Structures are given as C-alpha cells and as structure tokens.
C-alpha cells in the first residue's frame, strides 16, 4: 500500500466516522446512553450531593462499592465516561446542525418545486370542473393561499400550475432548538468552571460573616477556575432568626433578619436591613446568599477552680429535622496554662443532646417540638486530652473516641440541665448551661453564566414549540382549460413532515377552491385522507 493510499484510507475512515457520528441514529443512541448514564447518578448516593450517604452505602456493600467507586458511579456527573457521552452528543449535534443550517438557508432562497405530473398519486388529492376561466381560478387560488410561498408555471399543453409551500418556520424552530441546546450545555459548563458555592454557619445573635475568601466558609466548593482571591466582597450580620410553626410541629415560615454591606458600602460602613427567607435569597450583584438551614447552639459557661470563666457557644447539629433534637460537643481549653502537657490533662468537652422542647422517656432526653418552648440538655462532661494537638482533623460535633478508648479523656460527670442549672465536677470546676442561641446555615452561590442558561432554555422551549407545532407542507394546483369557458382544477397535497392534521387544512382549501355541487367525480374525488383512518382525531 502506498502512502497516498493509506492517506485516502485514513480520510475515508475519518469521513465515515464523522458521518456515522452525525447521523440521526447515532444521536438517538447517544441520547439513550445519556439517559442510561444519568440513572446511577439518581439512584446511587453521590459524593457531590451527600458524602455521608456514600460512606454509609459503602459500609453496607463492602464488595460491590469499591467496584462502583472505581467506575465513578458515586460521582457520575464528574466521571470521564459521562463526559464522553455528552461530548460525543455535543459533536454529533454540531455535526448535524451546521449542514442543516446551510441547507435551510439554501432552501429559503429556492422557489417551491414544480408541480408533479400525477397529482392523484399524492396522499391528498382533489379535482373538479369549474365554470370559471383559468385566470379567475388562479386569482382565487392566490387569495386562498395567502401566507404560502408560491411559484407559478405554465405547462406546454396550456395548463397553468401553482406550487405552494408553507411551514418553513418548522426548520427554523428546530435549528433554534438544537443550537440553544448547545448553548445551554456551554453555559452550564462555564458556570461550573468559574462559579463557586460555599456554606457557613452563623449564630443568629448579631454575628457577622464576610465573603473575604474560602477560609471564611465551613465548606467551599470552587469551580476549576476559581482561586478564591476575587470573591465579591460583602458582609452580613445575622440579627435574629424567627421560625413559625403550626401546632403540629410543621414549619410554616423561616425568616432571618439580617443586615448586609455590599461592595460599595464596606468603606462607608452602611448596613442595609434585609429579611432572608427560604425562596427569597439576598442578591448582591451576581452573588446570592441563601438561608438553607437552622438549628441551636447551647451556651455553656465553665468556671474553673481558680475562678476564671470561659463561655462557649457552638452549633450542635440536628439529628431529627422534625423535632430539632440536636447533638454536639462544646470544647474548652483551661485558661492561663502555659505548660502544654499539663493543659492536655485539663481540657474539657461538654457533649450530649439538646432538645428545644424537652421530654424525658425514662432518663432519655428527646424533643417534642422544634421550637424553643422548654429547652434542656443531657450532657456528659469529659476531662483530659481532647487530642486536638495530634494533627488529626477533628469533628466539631463530637469528641475523638480514640482518646476515650486510650483513657486519656475521661468522663467525669453526666447530668440533665435546664437553662440556668449547673453541675460541679470532682475538681470543683462548675459547668453552667446558660441558655441557647439559634444559628442559621447560609449558602453563598455564584454562577455568572446562569442568565445565559436561562436565555438558552427559553430558546430551547420556543424552538421546540415551533418545530412541533408548525407543519412543513406542499400544495399544488393545476388548472387545465376545458371547453369554451370552463377549466379542470386539480389539487394535490403532501406533508413533508409528520402528516398529522394536514388533511383537514387541505380539505378546507379544496372546499374553498372547488365548487361544491361539482365536487368531482364520485366519492374518491374529494376524499383525500383515505390512508389515514384516524385523521381528524385531535
């Protein structure tokens, strides 16, 4: 094989691949692959949505889970194979849309095709004798076909024909639909690239949060192009959180009373009041802030044996969303201790349950209602080494169990407390439960491409509507002189796309043009839709 040969072989192969890829059938198969590929993303827990549930699932399925994990089934929408499917679909879409747009532009300039010889072979057909002269019939036809694109021709035997075509908007709609779909995909990708999402918990007691950088957040998910140095600067201060509940415990309204400073207010120090609610985010430029959760932070004051006091307010996490029974840990370092080794024997952790409306089942604390009606805590106090200098990351909601197991952290007391009550540890340290502060959990989102996505989505819908509602159809009329003053008028019709519904329109036009009393020779003269027994349904 010569080099030239192999080159043509390669180009031929490439051309065939391209053709195959851009064919309708391939697009169909890719569409189904996309649907199929998305399904595990909906059915299996996903890291991006809820990493906790992924770990639970992995613990429950020790053999299957590692395989699924390797295949990316817990991160479907970030997996290479899912990307491969939609990139192929993307290419297929481009390959399909570009030539069709060119072809459409060409068609727009073309006149309707010449009248076929045998109109009676068409799916829609009608024929009748008219008393009117040729010119008259043609004028009437032109009037009846207003809005159609028309070309008139004369035939050698003296007959005059009129070709009409309508419904060009169908292709336009269809092209808009497909192109907008591409636009939507690109907008989505751009949003993922340059956008970010961060979550932070703020106490609803006048505490502040400033969007100064990723470190200000409890969790921060940047797009690939976000380094966190250029976040829109703004600050919020959460004054108050007010939930409203029905007597059944069902929530009715959540409202956070906040004040904020936009980028231009930071120097002047102006604060603007705002009511942050679910479904009503704060929008500052393109950055939005949402109220996505709330809960309680019990407040403890510890009086150490030397008389020094320390207070701690840390959010505890709801374990039951219906009653807001919460669990958590509030940790203290003994004050004024410079010796690290000694300090590590005197650290303190208050851990346990908090109930906004306490009920005791036996000695077990639970909550009867999500609102703050009758709060109580059931706590265990640990003393010793919290292990937070071990370099391992610590949960803010719990103590390090390995420290307890190794005996370096010991339980020294447990008790149920109401606000104002206190307990005394063996070393005379006093732990008081002062009360409780509400916290809100806020999300900040930034996606500069979302308006583009919306625009393209509207175009997708509009294009889809047009391409499904408009029918591309053709109609031909042949007027043949017959006798001294009469003519024979023959109509033929063909729907170029889905034929549904064209029969009725054709019949209407035929009825307008052909005289009823001479409606053709016999039954079949006017029946146009014999091949469609269901025509007229709908």
């Amino acid at each position, binding site marked *: 094989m010569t080099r030239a040969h192999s080159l043509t072989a390669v180009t031929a192969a490439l051309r065939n691949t391209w053709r195959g890829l851009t064919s309708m059938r391939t697009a169909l198969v890719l569409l189904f692959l996309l649907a199929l590929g998305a399904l595990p993303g909906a*059915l299996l827990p996903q890291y991006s949505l809820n990493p906790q549930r992924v770990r639970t699932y992995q613990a429950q399925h020790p053999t299957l889970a590692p395989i699924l994990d390797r295949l990316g089934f817990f991160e479907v929408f970030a997996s290479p194979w899912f990307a491969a499917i939609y990139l192929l679909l993307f290419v297929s879409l481009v390959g399909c849309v570009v030539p069709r747009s060119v072809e459409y532009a060409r068609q727009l300039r073309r006149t309707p095709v010449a009248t076929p010889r045998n109109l009676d072979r068409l799916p829609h057909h009608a024929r009748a004798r008219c008393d009117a002269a040729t010119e008259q019939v043609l004028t009437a036809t032109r009037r009846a076909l207003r809005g159609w694109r028309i070309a008139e021709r004369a035939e050698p035997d003296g007959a005059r024909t009129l070709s009409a075509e309508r419904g060009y908007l169908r292709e336009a709609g269809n092209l808009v639909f497909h192109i907008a779909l591409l636009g939507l995909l690109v907008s989505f990708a751009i949003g993922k690239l340059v956008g970010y999402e961060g979550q932070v918990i703020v106490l609803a007691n006048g505490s502040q949060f400033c969007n100064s950088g990723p470190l200000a957040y409890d969790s921060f998910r940047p797009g690939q192009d976000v380094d966190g140095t250029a976040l829109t600067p703004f600050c919020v201060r959460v004054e108050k959180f007010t939930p409203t509940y029905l007597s059944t415990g069902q929530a009715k309204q959540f409202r956070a009373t906040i004040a904020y400073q936009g980028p231009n207010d930071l120097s002047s120090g102006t604060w603007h009041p705002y009511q942050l609610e679910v479904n009503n*985010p704060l929008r500052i430029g393109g950055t939005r802030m949402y109220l996505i959760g709330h809960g309680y932070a019990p407040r403890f004051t510890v009086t150490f044996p030397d008389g020094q006091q320390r207070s701690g307010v840390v959010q505890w996490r709801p374990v039951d969303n219906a009653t807001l029974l919460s669990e958590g840990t509030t940790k203290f370092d003994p004050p004024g201790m410079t010796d690290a080794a000694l300090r590590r024997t005197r650290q303190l952790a208050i851990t346990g349950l908090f109930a906004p409306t306490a009920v005791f089942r036996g000695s077990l604390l639970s909550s009867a209602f999500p609102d703050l009606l009758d709060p109580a805590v059931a706590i265990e106090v640990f003393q010793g080494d919290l292990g937070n200098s071990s370099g391992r990351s610590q949960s803010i909601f719990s103590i390090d169990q390995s420290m307890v197991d190794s005996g370096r952290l010991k339980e020294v007391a447990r008790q149920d407390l109401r606000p104002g009550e206190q307990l005394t540890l063996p070393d005379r340290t006093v732990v008081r439960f002062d009360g409780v502060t509400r916290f809100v959990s806020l999300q900040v989102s930034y996606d500069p491409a979302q308006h583009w996505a919306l625009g393209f*989505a509207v175009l*997708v819908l509009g294009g889809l509507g047009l391409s499904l509602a408009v029918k591309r159809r053709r109609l031909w009329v042949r007027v043949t002189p017959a006798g001294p003053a009469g003519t024979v008028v023959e109509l033929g019709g063909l729907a170029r796309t889905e034929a549904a519904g064209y029969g009725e329109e054709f019949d209407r036009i035929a009825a307008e043009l052909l005289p009823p009393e001479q409606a053709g020779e016999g039954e079949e003269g006017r029946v146009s*839709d014999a091949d469609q027994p269901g025509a*007229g*349904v*709908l």
Partner: protein
Amino acid sequence: MPINPVLASYSDLAYGTALVLYLFAMVLHAGEYAAGRVPVTAAGGRITAQGTGSVATLPPPTNVTEGGVTDGAPSRSKAERIGRSAVALTGLAVLVHASSLALRGAAIGRVPWANMYEFTSAVCFVAVAGWLVVLYRQRNAPEGSASPAGPAPLRRLGVFVLLPIVVLMFLGGTVLYAQATPLIPALSSYWITIHVSAAATATGILLVSGVASVLYLLGTGGSTRIAARLPASTSLDRLAYRTAVLALPIWTFAIITGAIWAEAAWGRYWGWDPKETCALVAWVVYAGYLHARATAGWRGPRAAWINVGGFGMMLFNLFFVNIVVAGLHSYAGI
C-alpha cells in the same frame, strides 16, 4: 392561611365519589369492549404496515357494524349504548373530581398539588379530561377526513384509559393520602403554581399517550384477537404521537420553571438532584421518541416502546424517587 377542615372533608368525599364513578365507567367500558366483537376477518385490514419509511397505506377499515348488528337498523347497537353511557359517566366523574380539587384548593388557599396525594389526583384529572377532549374531537372531526366507516372508535379504549386512573387514584386515596395542611417554607412560593401545574398537566397527557402506545404494541404484537377489538393501529399511533407532541413542550416548561425555582430555593438551578435527573432522563426519552418517529426503521413498534419507556420513567420518578430515594424533593411527602 388557616385550613378549612369542612371544605377539606368535602373534597375527600368528592375524591372518593369520583373514584367510584370512574370504576363504574370502567366496568361499563369493559362491557362495551366485550360486546363490541369484531369478526376476525376484518382484522387483516386493521394492522398497518409500519417501519417502511413511507406513509402507511391500507384500505380503510372494513365497515364492520358494531355488535354484529348487520341489518342496517338505525337503532344503536348494545355496545354503542353501553359505550355512550360509559363516556357520560366519565364526564360526570371528571366534574366531581374537579370539584374535589377545587374544594381542596379552597380549603388550603393554594393550588392543591403540593404532595403526592394531591399531585396524583391532579395528574389523573388532567388525563381523564384530556381523554374526553380526544373523544370529543374525534366525534366532531370533519366528515370529509373520515373513512366511510367513520373513524375507528377510540372510545373503545376507555377501559384501558380508566384502568390506570382507577389504580392511581386508589393508591392516592389510601397509601399516599395526606391531610390538608399549609405549605412548608420551602414550598411557599408562587413557583409552585407554575412548576407543579405544568408537571401535572404534562404527566396527565403523557399517561394517555402511554396507554395509546401500550395498546398499539398489543395490537401489532401479533394477536389478531386483541387487535380486532382495538381501533386501527394508525389511530393509536397517531393518538400517542399527538399527545406526546402536546405534552413535551409542557414538560420542558415544567423542568425549566423547576430550575428557576431551584435557583431561588436551593441555591443553584441544576444540581443533579434525583428528581431533576429523572425528569431530565424522561425528557431525553421523549425527545428520543420524537426523533425515533422521524428516523427510518424506528417508526412503529420501536418508537412505541420508547414512548412506553418514557412513561415508565415518569411513574418511576413520581413513586420510586419520591418514596425510596432521598433528595431535595422528598419533603413533598406522602
């Protein structure tokens, strides 16, 4: 907005009444179906060519008189009479059903489709109302476009349309039933009216479409005994297609408005939440259905299978995703 328990209980009563009426109408339709036997010889003309890529051509269905009454007597056959009363009963049921929805809406002061019970009820209502529109339009179809025998009577499908309705409404009234309550904060938004109404409308219409495709598959599946009693398969195919074409833009609208709402409620317009994902998958399947109808070799049974799969996806999304899979939509509750 306080709940009005009296109106809510009337709504429940109307719901139960509508369900019973649907059941009766279904039984009547079953009687019509059984009585409307068609000689098997006529079946040959009823199954049309498909998948040839051209418009199917066939002789108009042989003029078969319903119920075997062949003496040309003007009196309506028994099957015809049963069928008509079944439709009348369905009409009555749909009115009662509408009043159930209206009363519930009045009781809670908002659109009555915010949980699975309410949503299922709305879907069934749209499906039956849509079905009656189909029947009405067939009856009023211009004479000229019908074959001499009159269009094949779609009415005879009534039993198959009402069957899923009765099952869904029964499930809705028992397993899924939820007391009338005010909305939780996450749902307090005018978007619920827009987004969920669109979703319910599209789902209801697609139910009719799905039934038509199932029957189409039964009719072309080789059993002439079944086929003989069904309307011509072209009618079924056409019904399935035209309802799907109507529903797909509405479904698209439901997804887009859902995304707009999600931007305001959840902080992002698209986040691969299970319900979002399944809605998209169903959308893709229906897009595939329409593409298949335009692709040589995919028309006919293959396309019909896709349509059935699409509706399966809708049901899956409604029941499995709401009940089994935990997602942001889960608050919708049972």
